[in-house]
Each structure stands twice: as structure tokens, then as C-alpha cells.
């Protein structure tokens, strides 16, 4: 218990004794976490916009005359790619046609017997799922025709794949850069106390006792940096929402408070964890090297 008290006291001593270095670490952590947060928000919004467009994509499969939709319905329902499927009877299709024609709805009576076939309205999870689904449907003997926005689907699928890859790479890079920057800044802090640590080891301090203040310091700086980054991101993002709404009203952008709050909590945890891990690694490496008898 006493060791924790000393560790907390030493954490604040460390922070304030080398306040310039602490401030530098804090600002560095805040900057890299801001970039990380910005890249994540960008990736999330890209994904969100694409999924909104993908969600609106519908595949329509028309049965041959006299065929029911049972066989095709069974196949579609068993597919994991499908989000939602609905069978449209000829009667319902006729009703829809009437509704569409409006005051010319009387014209459908000229058709005599209802000529419309059974059809399926299928929604898939992602644009890239459409092509394999269409391929499966076309081989069914009961299917007459499958309608979908072919080129658009292919382009969307490509954009979706590319955006996932690019945002993945950006996230990975920013995470790597943040880790390296925080790790190195804390390593400098450790080297500035090299002599003190060596004396502590010589007089019998355990590596845990030596590490704790540095680990707490790393966590505090990481969490503090994340808080600053969140404040910056919050203000930038709300300005971005305003700007998008006033200029590009058709563009969907995430403004759900719950999702954003979850994201900020995640960023805060990422900052604290990165700070903790980096400082632990840096101090552990140093103490292990110093403890090794020559």
C-alpha cells in the first residue's frame, strides 16, 4: 500500500520536475491521437455513407409465368449475404402498378387477366454481395429475369473495398506512429532519470517499484493527450457537420450522439492504454538492461 502511495507521489514529482518534457509529451500524444481520431472518424463516415447507399440497393427477381416464388425464396433465405427478402405476388404487383399510374390506374383493366408474375425484392448486406447472388438466381429454372443496378453495384463494391483498405492502412499507420512517438518521448523521460534509476536498482528497489511512477505518468499523459484530442476533434467534427449540412445536404454523415460518445470513450481508452503500454515497455527495457550483471 505504501509503495502505491510513493508511486503516486513520484508520478507527480516526475510530471512537475520535468514539466517541459511532460508538456511536450502531452502535446505530442494529443497531436497523434487527434490524427488517429480524425482518420478513424473519416473511415467511419466513409463506411457509413457506403453502407447507406448499399442498404438502398435492391435486386428484383421475376419468376416465369405460372411459376411461384417458393423455390427461389428458399434459396435466397438460406444465403448469408441477404439482409432482407420479400415475395411479391402478382396481385400485389398489380396494386403497386395501379398506385404508380395514379389517375390512369383504370388502364390496368385493359390488360384483362393479370399478366404480372411472382417476384422477389432482395436487399443484401453489401454491394459486393449482389453479383454472386444474381449468379445463383440466374441458374434457377423458375427465374425469368433479374434486375439490378449492375455498373453502380460494381463501382460501389470497388469503392467499398478500397475505402476499407485505405482506412485500415491509415489507422494502422497512425496507431503505429502514435505508439512510436509516445514510446520515444517516455524513453527520453526515463533517460533523463537514468542515474536515479541506476542508484535505485543498486540499493535494492524492485523493477516494479521503479516502473510504477513511469507507468502512471505514461497513462496520465496518454489519457490527458486523448482528452485534448477529443476536445479538438469534437469541435472540428461539429463544425464539419454544420458545413456538410449547409453545402452538401445529400451527404449522410454520422451525427448520432451515442455513436460519437462511444467513439470518444474508445479514443480516451486507446490514449491511456497506449501511454501505459509504451511507458511499461520503455521502463521495463531499461531496468532489465540495467539489472543485468556484467
Amino acid at each position, binding site marked *: 500500500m505504501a509503495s502505491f502511495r510513493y508511486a503516486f507521489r513520484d508520478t507527480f514529482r516526475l510530471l512537475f520536475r520535468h514539466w517541459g518534457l511532460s508538456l511536450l509529451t502531452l502535446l505530442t500524444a494529443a497531436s497523434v491521437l487527434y490524427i488517429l481520431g480524425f482518420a478513424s472518424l473519416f473511415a467511419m463516415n466513409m463506411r457509413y455513407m457506403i453502407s447507406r447507399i448499399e442498404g438502398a440497393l435492391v435486386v428484383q427477381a421475376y419468376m416465369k409465368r405460372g411459376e411461384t416464388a417458393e423455390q427461389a425464396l428458399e434459396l435466397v433465405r438460406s444465403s448469408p449475404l441477404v439482409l432482407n427478402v420479400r415475395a411479391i405476388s402478382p396481385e400485389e404487383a398489380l396494386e403497386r402498378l395501379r398506385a404508380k399510374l395514379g389517375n390512369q390506374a383504370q388502364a390496368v383493366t385493359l390488360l384483362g387477366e393479370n399478366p404480372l408474375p411472382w417476384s422477389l425484392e432482395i436487399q443484401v448486406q453489401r454491394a459486393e454481395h449482389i453479383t454472386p447472388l444474381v449468379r445463383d438466381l440466374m441458374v434457377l429454372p423458375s427465374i425469368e429475369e433479374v434486375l439490378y443496378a449492375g455498373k453502380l453495384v460494381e463501382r460501389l463494391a470497388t469503392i467499398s473495398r478500397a475505402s476499407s483498405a485505405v482506412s485500415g492502412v491509415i489507422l494502422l499507420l497512425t496507431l503505429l506512429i502514435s505508439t512510436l512517438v509516445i514510446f520515444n518521448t517516455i524513453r527520453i523521460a526515463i533517460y533523463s532519470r537514468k542515474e536515479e534509476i541506476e542508484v535505485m536498482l543498486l540499493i*535494492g528497489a*524492485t523493477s516494479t*517499484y521503479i516502473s510504477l511512477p513511469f507507468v502512471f505518468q505514461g497513462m496520465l499523459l496518454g489519457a490527458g493527450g486523448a482528452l485534448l484530442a477529443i476536445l479538438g476533434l469534437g469541435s472540428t467534427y461539429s463544425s464539419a457537420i454544420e458545413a456538410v449540412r449547409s453545402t452538401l445536404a445529400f451527404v449522410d454523415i454520422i451525427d448520432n450522439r451515442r455513436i460519437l460518445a462511444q467513439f470518444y470513450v474508445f479514443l480516451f481508452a486507446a490514449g491511456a492504454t497506449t501511454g501505459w503500454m509504451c511507458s511499461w515497455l520503455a521502463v521495463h527495457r531499461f531496468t532489465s538492461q540495467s539489472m543485468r550483471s556484467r
Partner: protein
Amino acid sequence: MDIRLSGVTKVFEPDIVALEDVYLSVDSGEFLYLVGTTGSGKTTLLRLISREYLPTRGQITVGDRNLRKLRSSDLPYYRREVGVVFQDFKLLPNLTVFENVAFVLEAMGIPPKLVESRSNEVIDQVGLWRRRFLKPPQLSGGEQQRVAIARAMANSPSVFLADEPTGNLDLRTSEEIMRLLLSINASGTTVIVATHDQYLVDAYRQRLVELHNGRLKRDERRGRYFVDGEL
């Protein structure tokens, strides 16, 4: 705690032999001077006992611990039983005298009240009570040496190693330090003092071990620094 060295050799890269085939036995509660010229291996021997170095060959046991087999997780606990006064003091310049002494006890997880009372006790013992809130750069060489001694004795170690504790000090201060070391020994602590201060060795005669070019040259009970006829 007793100390046993059997056939200890220490070679530094590439091929500097600091100690060669040293056999030495120090009983618990004994006081021993380690003398010899610069480069004779005194500091290396102390550093082997404090487990800063590992011997290239041979065994060192302190109490019931074989230092070669000591795991790194046990090393801090071993070092707490060995108080070391370093040649260059190794005091932390930005901590006060009190903090320099207290942090040894804090590192052991001792509660703050006990840390305070024990630190004050040893600071008083070494005669630095009135200077306890000063920092090392504000102290004289002798005072810094006494802080180093206070720090080494704070956790009442079983073995006390002092490397040139009177180096560059005037005679009066050296005698004060010497009396301090003898008082530590009087409480049952095994004390090894590496020195080439011939006056003190002869004035406060104790067991004397002389090293020469890394080899044990002499081991005498109540020996004198210079053997008759050597001068």
C-alpha cells in the same frame, strides 16, 4: 552474514584480468580492510559481492546465497541486505539529504512514519541533523560521504561495503568516518572497507587483505599497511 569467495576470477572484455583465483573468507560481524594500489582489484571485488558483476570463474556465497545462482527477481532483496558506499557517492543531486536517505526505505515499501523516524535517526547518527534539508551540491565532500553512509546503513544491512570512504577527505573528517564505520561494525554488521589510506589502516588496526594485480597478496589479522622493511 559471512562472505566466501572461492577461486574467483573476473576478466573484462577483451582480456583484462581484474581478479585472479581469489579465495577469501569473511566471517559474520568481521571488519576487513581491502588495500592495494589503484587497479589492484579492490573495487571489482566489492562490486562482485554487491552482485553488480558476476565472476568469470569461481563462486561467491554471502550468507546462504550463491550469487551466481541468484535470480534477477531476488536481486533487489539481496541488495537490501548489503549496504554500499560508492566511491563517487551516487547521491541524487535534486533530493535533499533526508530524501536521499528516505528513498532507500521507501523502495522497500516501508510506511511513511517509519521511513521518517528511521531516516532522521541515521541522519542524526552521521551528524547531519542540521543539514538534512540541504541538497548534495550544497554539502562538503565529507558531508556527502556521510550522507552516502547514512543511506547505506538506513535499512540496517547485514553486510556493509565501503569503497574509498575517506578518499580526498581531510584527516579529521576521515577519522570521523572511520569511527562511524567501526560503530556500524560494533552492531554486528560485516564491514569491508576498500582503501589506500595507510594512516587510518594503521591507526584503527583490523584484519587487512591486500590485493596486487588482481591476486591476494596478504591476509593478516590486525595487519599494518606496510610490512616491516617494505619502506
